[in-house]
């Protein structure tokens, strides 16, 4: 079992008072709580803080933790023989467990924060833990549905009702219709219940991976559509990629840069109802290296055209010095 320094996690000295522990936890929780903070790694940081607080706020657990002695964080250690924890039970192996699981097994659940765990009476029925995980999938997989494989290290109850951390592979089918931020609940696919307790659920938080062409907004998709000046001016039929293959889009004459051309129902499918739309955003681009002939033609157009793209500036420029 690896040692964790709960006092260090909360930025406290080992003789901190109960009030100091609560104050330090609240301050750090406000900063790192994953439902409040958007900083990278907030969830892991908060878990560390909550785990430390769950043990240190409880007088008995804190005393038991203090009796483990002080070790370097991450150092392998065994509780002393007279520690008084579950080491006397047959078949109990400290190597298999996380320090938090050890304290979760001590005493009853005192109510929040998470990490407190449940007490392990042998006859008590305990529900399996729910897991919430991010599932990052491609736009194509969101459109077609996919099977994802998630590798998690999860605490599970052993035959004695004690928690031990086990690696588990979760396979989850994500039906078509996903988009960013949607949640999928997979009933009974979380942690195993103990003694007849219900199986936990697996909650997937869908994240769409960036795509080279498409940008999702809900179930609609946006794509940049570069057009040559003559295509924008004269109109054209141009190929546009969609999630289900290339289609031909009619660009009307006089299309302006930034104008959105809608391809109905070519966005992401919805779980229910009509698919979203695909919007092609016109961009007028010019060749960067003109051939001699192109230069001639553009010059001819410049000389012969009466078009003034800045006519609306006229009032201001007339008064300019």
């Amino acid at each position: 079992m690896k040692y964790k320094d709960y006092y260090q996690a909360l930025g406290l000295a080992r003789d901190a008072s109960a009030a100091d522990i609560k104050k330090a936890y609240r301050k750090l929780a406000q900063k790192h709580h994953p439902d409040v903070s958007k900083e990278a790694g907030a969830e892991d940081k908060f878990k560390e803080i909550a785990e430390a607080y769950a043990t240190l706020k409880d007088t008995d657990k804190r005393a038991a933790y203090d009796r483990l002695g002080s070790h370097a964080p991450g150092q392998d250690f065994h509780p002393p023989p007279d520690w008084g924890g579950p080491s006397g039970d047959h078949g109990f192996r400290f190597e298999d467990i996380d320090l938090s699981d050890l304290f979760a097994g001590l005493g009853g659940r005192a109510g929040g924060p998470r990490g407190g765990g449940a007490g392990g009476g042998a006859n008590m029925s305990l529900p399996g833990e729910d897991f919430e995980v991010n599932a990052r999938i491609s736009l194509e997989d969101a459109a077609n549905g996919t099977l994802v494989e998630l590798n998690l290290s999860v605490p599970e109850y052993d035959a004695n009702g004690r928690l031990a951390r086990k690696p588990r592979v979760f396979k989850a089918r994500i039906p078509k219709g996903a988009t960013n931020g949607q949640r999928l609940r997979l009933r009974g696919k979380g942690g195993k219940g103990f003694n007849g307790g219900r199986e936990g659920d697996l909650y997937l938080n869908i994240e769409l991976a960036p795509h080279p062409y498409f940008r999702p907004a809900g179930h609609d998709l946006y794509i940049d559509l570069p057009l040559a000046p003559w295509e924008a001016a004269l109109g054209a039929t141009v190929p546009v990629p969609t999630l289900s293959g290339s289609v031909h889009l009619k660009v009307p004459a006089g299309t302006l840069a930034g104008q959105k051309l809608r391809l109905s129902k070519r966005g992401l499918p919805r779980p229910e109802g009509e698919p979203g739309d695909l919007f092609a955003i016109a961009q007028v681009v010019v060749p960067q290296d003109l051939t001699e002939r192109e230069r001639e033609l553009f010059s001819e157009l410049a000389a012969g055209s009466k078009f003034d793209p800045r006519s609306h500036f006229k009032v201001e420029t007339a008064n300019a010095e």
Partner: protein
Amino acid sequence: MQSELEESAWLNEHYSVTLGELAMLSGLPDDILRELVDCGALAPVSIEAEHWVFSAHCVVTMRRAERLRSDFELDANALAVALSFLERIHELEEQLRAARAQIPRRAR
């Protein structure tokens, strides 16, 4: 049209849960859920109905509510305020995401 939660279900407005299911799935006790309904932080599909039914999306928000209640030791009133701010942030993030999706890549 709403249907009951299946083995694998999107937590959106197309699925519904009862008050009891919401309590079980979120971990929030019935009385707190009722208080949140009173505060307007949680809305059943029909408040007049004899047995309240909620959009399955409420499972997501109430699980978050339970985490906040437990981790910050919040009462129902404080929870209602926190949830309204978080909902507002969520809406603004969605609007920001939609606005960003419309900005041509070269203009970024």
